């Protein structure tokens, strides 16, 4: 089964608004990764968080790793149509990655 739980499954956002997607684990994670998959595309690596409480930004995207390293969030500000897609978090299980169910984002213009 999946090691990480992701919510919400779907996010319908008005263009220009902010939203957040969350990733939770019952166990402490060594790191958490985030991927984006555009419609019809393949998953693309966005970022990896390793340290407790780590915060990283990529333009309008802010990624956080919880203090206990059991949860993570992705916050997007001023959503644009280019943000459409599915965002997956993923956590290592040995040499493999366990992917969350993903949050599929649609944007209303």
């Amino acid at each position, binding site marked *: 089964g999946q090691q990480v739980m992701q919510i919400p499954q779907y996010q319908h956002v008005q263009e220009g608004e902010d939203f957040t997607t969350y990733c939770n684990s019952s166990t402490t994670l060594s790191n958490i990764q985030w991927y984006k998959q555009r419609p019809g595309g*393949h*998953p693309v*690596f966005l970022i*990896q968080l390793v340290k407790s409480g780590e915060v990283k930004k990529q333009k309008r995207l802010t990624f956080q790793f919880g203090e206990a390293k059991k949860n993570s969030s992705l916050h997007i500000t001023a959503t644009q149509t280019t943000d459409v897609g599915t965002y*997956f978090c993923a956590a290592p299980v040995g040499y493999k990655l366990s992917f969350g169910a993903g949050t599929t984002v649609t944007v209303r213009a």
Partner: protein
Amino acid sequence: SAVISQKPSRDICQRGTSLTIQCQVDSQVTMMFWYRQQPGQSLTLIATANQGSEATYESGFVIDKFPISRPNLTFSTLTVSNMSPEDSSIYLCSVRSDFYEQYFGPGTRLTVT
């Protein structure tokens, strides 16, 4: 980052037949991963392919159904055997960097009729 190509990009196959998917990486890698992604779903790992040894399959996937070859450090194939409509899916190969992030090929979109 690695550049990964897959062939074919898509195919429509009859039930009972087999399809072999090829994955080529532009650099030598120890592990290659094969995933399945059913419509609207997350990624499910099928197996891990190491050069020079048999692939390691995840629970629910067996070698007879999904034989894998890994003849060298830049290439792998996944065969979907004796296909049924339930095998309709996207099949993705992936490699892991030294920093543990994964890079994916463009995927093979398979439809079984």
